């Protein structure tokens, strides 16, 4: 289980997370949605210790990530696969070496085992036979699939996806969504998917949580979110330019003017 407990994180004057609390249950796929720049990626980077919270905690299986020793954090990271927004493949390595890199860190795995695990992972993302290619020779969608293969080759217990379909055409996005579902079925992993693509969220998610102004605005099953009465969540899932968020902005602005404040904006 992954728990975000009253998490606060700021970068200078920019307060990103302000009391973010969320529980991801074992075996489920939790989708976190929200506007660009609201801290979705920041939140999941705390899970693997890439960022440390200003206040609050992130716990994985009861272990508070920020309190782990370097060795314990390395051990925890070995159980978590992270799929980066732009794949983050190593330019100077072949696709094989990219996928094999994490496996080479594991003790007791022979080169033969590594080769078969790499082939298996690439086959799962429909990229068998690309082992000798370099990342620059692949399209954006293929690179993302290699990023996914690199994560699943480690047979992790948790998979974190940072905007897996951003920048892809609808067909490639649907392929990635299928892969996320297939990976969950094949490996039985607990997943957190960051996205603002609602079609993707409905396809891959068991539950959906909306991050808004640094904290969770609403969390619920796909059906609950689809039927939400919250105007901010409604506006987001329907992708309308006007609605709850715009109304909230106007209300804040009016309140600011009544108080004699200038430049008040949501």
């Amino acid at each position, binding site marked *: 289980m992954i728990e975000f407990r009253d998490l606060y994180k700021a970068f200078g004057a920019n307060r990103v997370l302000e009391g973010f609390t969320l529980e991801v249950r074992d075996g489920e796929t939790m989708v976190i949605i929200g506007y660009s720049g609201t801290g979705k990626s920041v939140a999941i*980077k705390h899970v*693997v*210790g*890439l960022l440390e919270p200003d206040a609050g905690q992130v716990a994985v299986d009861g272990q508070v990530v920020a309190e782990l020793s*370097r060795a314990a954090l*390395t051990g925890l*990271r*070995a159980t*978590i*696969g*992270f799929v*980066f*927004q*732009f794949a*983050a*493949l*190593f*330019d100077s390595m072949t696709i094989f070496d990219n996928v094999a*890199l*994490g496996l080479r*860190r594991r003790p007791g795995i022979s080169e033969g085992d590594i080769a078969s695990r790499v082939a298996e992972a690439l086959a799962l993302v429909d990229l068998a036979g690309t082992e000798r290619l370099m990342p620059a020779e692949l399209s954006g969608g293929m690179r993302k699939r290699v990023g996914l293969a*690199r994560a699943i080759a*480690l047979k992790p217990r948790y998979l974190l996806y940072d905007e897996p379909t951003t920048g892809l055409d609808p067909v490639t996005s649907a392929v990635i969504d299928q892969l996320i579902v297939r990976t969950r079925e094949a490996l039985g992993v607990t997943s957190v998917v960051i996205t603002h693509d609602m079609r993707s969220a409905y396809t891959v998610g068991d539950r959906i949580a909306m991050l808004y102004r640094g904290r969770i605005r609403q969390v619920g099953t796909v059906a609950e979110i689809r039927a939400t009465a919250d105007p901010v969540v409604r506006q987001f899932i329907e992708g309308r330019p006007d609605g709850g968020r715009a109304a909230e902005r106007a209300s804040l602005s009016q309140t600011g003017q009544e108080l004699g404040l200038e430049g008040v904006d949501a």
Partner: protein
Amino acid sequence: MVTSLGRRSIGLVTGFGQFGRFLGNVARALPDVRTWGGLTAQQMRRLGVDSLPIALFIAAFTGIVLALLASYVMTGAVPPYLVGTLVTKTITMELGPVLTGLALAGRVGANIAAELGTMRVTEQVDALETLAYNPYAFLVIPRVLAGLVMFPVVVAFAMGMGIFTGWLTATNLLPITNAEFMRGARLFFMPFDVWYGLLKSASFGFVITLIGCHLGLATRGGAEGVGRATTRTVVYSAEMILVLDAYWAVTLLRGHFQ
């Protein structure tokens, strides 16, 4: 003005603090031999062997100019064989290490900062961490070790090339025979001269790679940030080469006058 001074002071202290933290992280990654051991040889080739052409090119022309300059300065005043002395001593102790160091600050330092900076802004460094690698063991230590070991090797070749072209120039363009040049070269030669030059170049290699790695990993803000890190690496490395050059002269040469 006071505000500006205060901001600069804070920036300076913060910069030293970040560099201190970087050094601490490097020191903590040292026991992870399993990671950096296999990668160091690859970096030695990239940083050292691939730098040989530029180092030899610079040394070749330095040797030519030095021989002609020595002859010009000493005309009629001192015996011509001292051209051999001047070329050998200057190339070995000063111009070989310093000119090669400055050239490699551009080639190696900028390369490291750009590569690591790009890796930072494209999340490749984060990806390494999520794959349970220590980025300091994987990226920094192999480069710094390669710089420390390979800079003296490159400079040794540069020394040889500079002396060779100096000899070639002296014996073909100046009224100096091979015997005279060799006599001058041997007359004041001390093994210390070579060690001095190689020690300096090792320190240059250490500092250039360390600065490149630090500024590369500290890169923020996309392509502009990578460009800034690269420029700063070259500038700081060049400054540090001159500072270290003076430091080694003060600490190792001053004793010879006493």
